[in-house]
């Protein structure tokens, strides 16, 4: 705004309002420029002492602000006007007017005193100069200062060494003279700055920090010290001026400029402004010349997502100053599709690798790396690919229509069947269905016969699909496999036991006995529980003793064996007239607990002991935590919701160390009975919070699994003890609920008949 316009605006604004009030408002708002203009109007409209005093104040504040902004000459000019126009009002502004002269580099008037000044006066002058020396050469060349004056000599030394250290590496002798600068000299901070700059260019950052820290914050040299701090420590300046930015840019090789260019490129891309994008890219291209080939290629790849979506291949290659037929173009296309979340990226990568391999431009191991990269591309939702490195532990969900993983894996096996590469494939196998997984694992095993992982995975698959013969055959074939993987031994035992059970169920007692004997010989696989279970199987295969004898023998091994026997005989469809026993409540509860623990430890699915569990109901009040938890868990598994409910209520009442596990079990029951969403979420949050506090990894994992499966969202982990207690109390006191009715289906399924309860072992 021009001067006339500003005055006009001020006059308009002032209508109905005193110019004096307006001026004071401007001063209070820090608008010193406006205040000076308002002062001129005021003096013209209301001439007099009072108006002049206020005008002087406005001019004075303007001078003060210009000095602070580093505009010394402008400050001195305003000060001169002030001196000329209001000579009778200057008494209280003398100091400021002198400061304005010093800020403008006008030192002669003060330096001329030094020649005759007392020691005390000299110290005062030098002290005052500390805050005003913005260029030592101005002192060095001051005509009013005697050439032999210590300050003049110091100024020459500092000015010369400053010139050197800012232009080149100084020779040690060139820095030696700095030692002559006194500690109390107004140039002491400059001496420190010169040393700091010298240290900076020698990469001696500790020395930089030591010198910068010692600079007097009043000295203008401190401003340069801040720049050095940012350059050496990365600590941003509190107020980074444009001048400081330009200095940093020049020192660091244009990085600030490049950062600004990249920001402009992004902004132009966001605005879909191709013309601007092209111009910004041309500007950045000029900086490309300072890049090494590696860095240039990385910058291209990094800018692909920003530029690629706006330009054709031809335009893109022109922007990057590469040939349109450059061999890298297909790779850029694949990277662009990948960054844009396009599914076609996988196909492009595969085609790229296949072609280069065919043309023998890459070696098979390089093709394998590209195939592995394709495997790591994971689709997060219907349209978006994201790259997830499995080594970072990201989950890889099953993808039905993702690129055919099995074919990619087979290509990897064919290209590079090395153990290191194959183990990188493993995290991606979970997305395959069983038949593809079996095919891939078999290929892996063929490619790397010494690897235990494919064998273990194949055994696990055989167990899951109840293909025990296949699993045992594989075990036989891999007999020489050297592995310390404990899962291999566990699978061998479980598969053998399941096969023995299968033989017994199909009345092949003799074959079963042979297998059981074979298992018994593999003592390395057998723990206490497995040995005990094997005893039960042996008894079923060829009962040498009565059922009572067996129970007695199991009991001697610390296993009240009713649950085990119920499972074994139940699974085999056998009915035995067992002796009536009258266990005490404790014996019954402990027998159930121990039996369940044994069956779980050998991986036997529990299906048949529900009726024994029913008998525990009347004694649950006497059960401890360790007994209630498995009873509740198996009760839920067997569909005995009421039993599970009572067990968890009692478990919650104990408020023991398994409280979180009882809460988790309650969550599962609530899900089963289709309880209210909020209720389930609150119990789950309480369980998870406690599990985290107790660092119970298994319980945390289970809580996460439930949350993932049922989608209760982000669980609140900040529940305090009162909130948890309230949830526990609510659940403990809750009555056994009736399951909510499922929504009616249009086509009702045929209702299956409820199987008859099996005969109890305790029935005679």
């Amino acid at each position: 705004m021009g001067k006339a316009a500003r005055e006009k605006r001020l006059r308009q604004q002032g209508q109905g309002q005193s110019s004096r009030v307006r001026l004071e408002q401007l001063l209070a708002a820090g608008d010193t420029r406006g205040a000076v203009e308002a002062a001129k109007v005021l003096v013209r409209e209301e001439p007099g002492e009072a108006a002049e005093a206020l005008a002087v104040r406005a001019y004075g504040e303007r001078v003060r602000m210009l000095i602070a902004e580093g505009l010394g000459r402008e400050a001195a000019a305003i000060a001169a006007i002030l001196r000329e126009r209001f000579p009778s009002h200057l008494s209280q502004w003398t100091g400021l007017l002198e400061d304005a002269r010093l800020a403008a580099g006008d030192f002669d008037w003060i330096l001329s005193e030094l020649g005759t000044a007392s020691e005390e006066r000299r110290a005062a002058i030098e002290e005052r100069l500390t805050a005003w020396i913005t260029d030592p050469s101005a002192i060095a060349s001051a005509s009013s200062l005697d050439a032999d004056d210590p300050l003049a000599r110091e100024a020459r030394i500092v000015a010369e060494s400053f010139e050197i250290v800012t232009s080149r590496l100084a020779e040690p002798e060139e820095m030696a003279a700095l030692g002559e600068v006194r500690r109390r000299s107004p140039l002491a901070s400059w001496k420190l700055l010169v040393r700091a700059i010298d240290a900076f260019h020698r990469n001696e950052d500790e020395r930089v920090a030591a010198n910068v820290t010692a600079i007097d914050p009043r000295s203008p040299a401190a401003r340069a010290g801040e720049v050095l701090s940012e350059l050496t420590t990365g600590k941003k300046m509190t107020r980074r001026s444009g001048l400081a930015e330009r200095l940093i840019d020049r020192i660091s090789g244009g990085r600030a400029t490049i950062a600004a260019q990249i920001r402009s490129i992004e902004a132009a891309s966001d605005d879909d402004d191709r013309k601007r994008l092209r111009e910004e890219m041309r500007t950045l291209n000029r900086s490309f010349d300072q890049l090494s080939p590696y860095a240039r290629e990385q910058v291209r790849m990094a800018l692909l997502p920003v530029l690629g979506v706006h330009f054709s291949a031809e335009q893109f290659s022109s922007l990057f100053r590469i040939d349109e037929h450059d061999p890298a173009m297909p790779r850029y296309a694949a990277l662009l599709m990948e960054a844009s979340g396009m599914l076609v990226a996988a196909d492009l990568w595969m085609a790229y690798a296949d072609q280069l391999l065919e043309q023998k431009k890459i070696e098979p191991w390089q093709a394998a790396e590209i195939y592995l990269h394709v495997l790591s591309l994971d689709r997060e939702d219907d349209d978006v690919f994201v790259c997830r490195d499995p080594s970072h532990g990201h989950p890889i969900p099953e993808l039905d229509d993702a690129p055919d993983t099995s074919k990619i894996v087979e290509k990897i096996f064919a290209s590079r069947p090395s153990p290191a590469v194959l183990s990188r494939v493993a995290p991606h196998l979970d997305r395959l269905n069983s038949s593809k997984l079996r095919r891939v694992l078999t290929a892996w095993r063929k490619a790397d016969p010494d690897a235990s992982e494919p064998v273990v995975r194949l055994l696990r698959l055989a167990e899951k699909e109840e293909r025990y013969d296949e699993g045992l055959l594989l075990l036989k074939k891999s007999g020489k496999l050297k592995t310390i993987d404990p899962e291999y031994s566990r699978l061998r035992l479980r598969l053998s036991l399941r096969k023995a059970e299968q033989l017994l169920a199909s009345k092949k007692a003799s074959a079963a006995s042979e297998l059981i004997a074979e298992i018994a010989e593999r003592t390395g696989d057998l723990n206490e529980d497995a040995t005990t279970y094997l005893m039960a199987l042996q008894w079923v295969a060829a009962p040498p003793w009565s059922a009572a004898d067996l129970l007695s023998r199991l009991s001697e091994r610390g296993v009240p064996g009713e649950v085990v026997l119920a499972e074994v005989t139940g699974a085999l469809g056998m009915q035995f007239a067992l002796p009536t026993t009258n266990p005490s409540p404790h014996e019954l509860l402990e027998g159930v607990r121990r039996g369940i623990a044994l069956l779980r430890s050998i991986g036997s699915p529990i299906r048949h002991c529900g009726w024994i569990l029913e008998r525990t109901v009347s004694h649950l009040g006497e059960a401890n935590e360790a007994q209630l938890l498995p009873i509740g868990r198996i009760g839920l598994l067997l569909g005995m919701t009421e039993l599970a409910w009572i067990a968890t209520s009692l478990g919650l009442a104990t408020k023991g160390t398994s409280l979180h596990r009882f809460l988790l079990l309650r969550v599962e029951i609530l899900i089963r009975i289709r309880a209210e969403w909020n209720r389930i979420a609150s119990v789950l949050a309480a369980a998870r919070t406690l599990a985290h506090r107790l660092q119970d990894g298994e319980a945390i994992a289970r809580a996460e699994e439930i949350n993932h499966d049922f989608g209760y969202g982000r669980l609140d982990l900040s529940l305090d003890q009162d909130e948890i207690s309230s949830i526990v109390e609510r659940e403990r006191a809750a009555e056994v609920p009736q399951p909510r009715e499922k929504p009616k289906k249009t086509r009702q399924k045929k209702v299956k008949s409820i199987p008859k309860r099996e005969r109890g072992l305790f029935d005679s």
Partner: protein
Amino acid sequence: MNPYRVLGISEESDDDDAIRKAWLDGVRRFPPEKDPEQFALVREAYEMIRDRESRFRLQTFGDRRLRITSAIVDLFPSGRNHAGSAPWLAVIRGGTR
């Protein structure tokens, strides 16, 4: 970050042993207790190019850190160039501008 520059080796270098040696030199120069940041940088650089597979991945798929485009600036040389006295004096005179 340019891992080759951090380790002080040629970008043409394809020798695992030479790269490992450069890394060990870096570790010796910047022990973690004295300069943890530089130590971490040297280690990160080594991981980026330690074997032919890592180098191929870096060259083919790019440095994932650069997906944050502001990180691109780090690839440009960060010198300690002598700027001359004028820009220094401009800052010193500059005040709060």
